[in-house]
């Protein structure tokens, strides 16, 4: 056997061994996986962003690429050499992503507990929800501007976009959605929910959503009786 053939054979043997034990840890049954380093690379951009971001938050989102994928019961586990951490996913497939040097150095894996077909993972910025469900128009606008500022920082092609409003996204089984616009002069207006995708470009539909579009410099509040899953900035 020539040296070159020996090297190739050794490489293939090692590969076979690795395929039998995907991820840095084989303790968790994994139906699929994502590299922690790849996720870290995408998620740390928000952490390093130096602009204002006190009204916004960043999640790692598991995004099915095929229509009809169900995220209920989906679990994500961060599997490093010495530890495993369950990362709870919300109904939109999002989780708070831990930026851990130990997991990075271990080349850890993010393990999905079941197959959901083709998917990707990506950072997802949304507005921070308020515990009392009351959102000042000025605060929503400021939060949207913060999200747009970060989006422009990460993507030069968004320079010409403007904040057009926000979308409140609710759980599929949230019951009756009651969101109203309360104006300073006392006139209230109910904002009608429509069914659609939580985020622009996603295939997963069927979420009750309420869109509030910014109009002039009115002094108003958006009052939601239901806790939203997410408040999504709308760039137009």
């Amino acid at each position: 056997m020539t040296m070159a053939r020996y090297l190739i054979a050794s490489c293939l043997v090692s590969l076979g061994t690795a395929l039998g034990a995907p991820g840095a840890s084989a303790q968790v049954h994994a139906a699929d996986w994502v590299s922690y380093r790849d996720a870290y690379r995408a998620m740390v951009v928000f952490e390093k962003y130096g602009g204002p971001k006190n009204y916004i938050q960043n999640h790692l989102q598991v995004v099915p690429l095929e229509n009809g994928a169900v995220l209920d019961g989906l679990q994500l586990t961060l599997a490093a050499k010495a530890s495993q951490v369950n990362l709870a996913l919300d109904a939109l497939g999002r989780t708070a992503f831990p930026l851990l040097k130990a997991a990075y150095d271990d080349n850890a894996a993010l393990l999905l507990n079941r197959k959901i077909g083709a998917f990707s993972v990506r950072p997802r910025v949304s507005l921070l929800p308020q515990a009392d469900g009351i959102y000042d128009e000025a605060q929503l606008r400021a939060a949207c501007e913060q999200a747009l500022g970060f989006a422009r920082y990460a993507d030069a092609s968004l320079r010409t976009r403007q904040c057009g409003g926000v979308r409140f996204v609710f759980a599929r089984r949230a019951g009756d959605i009651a969101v109203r616009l309360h104006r300073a002069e006392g006139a209230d207006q109910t904002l009608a929910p429509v069914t659609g995708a939580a985020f622009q470009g996603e295939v997963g539909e069927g979420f009750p959503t309420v869109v509030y579009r910014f109009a002039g410099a009115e002094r108003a509040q958006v009052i939601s009786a239901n806790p939203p899953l997410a408040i999504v900035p709308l760039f137009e």
Partner: protein
Amino acid sequence: MNKFSALALIMLSSSAAAQTPATNPMPDGSRDMYVGLGLASAARYEGAGDSERKALPVLQVQWSNGVFISGMSAGMHLSRNPQLEYGPLVELQPRRDESGNSGGIDGIEARNSIVALTSVKLDQNRLYGMTPVSTRLLGGGFLNYYLTPDWRLTGSLLLGAGNERDGARLDLGVQRLAMQVGVHHRVSVAAGLSFANAHYNTAFFGVDRLDSLRSGNPMYRAGSGLKDAHLGLRWNWDLTPSWMLSSQVQVKRLTGDARHSPLVERPTNTTVSAAFAYRF
């Protein structure tokens, strides 16, 4: 804003234009390293009519301070802006002698042919009698701009090529990074142009009087200008978080004075490669 898989394993730097891996932010003190072994079929030298099969090592390392090694290139990311990448760049240009371009990495010159080379008779080898072009460490810089997180314009300028160390090459290109074609499959596409000064083209495509007498090639003075246009397609298959199969096909067409050199037997060369890489 998704820069997942912006990885560009560079293992054929001798045949590909200098490329820089995308910025890879990581925890302080960490590094991201790929090591592997690849098989490649490439032209014996730029413009050769025959090709050879080589085993080429794969190496890409990025450190948290921005320093990177990517194949035969090394550099440092200095920008903190995610839309802009720039910094110094060095590239090891392999020796070219009668047998063609040398393989090798980190200064170790070695021909790694594991399959019998295409038989080339001496009287058909246009490099026979030509002065060898010595290994050179080229120095310069790179500048990349992201139109979107998936599209970037690339540029690099490298100086110091050729025996006289006065050759300069400017590479300009556009890359589409990381098109996901499956859960663990990603494809990237790159196209570019390489410009060279007269010294560079003279070193690799010119024939002076002494070379002409020894080789039988007609004398040829190569001027500056567009040297080649190239198009590449890379497919990365993540087998596990640690193992990857990276495959590439690249087509390069020599143009201008380089194309008309008597050393050029075929202006269009195709390079095909595949390599397993382990991520540490």
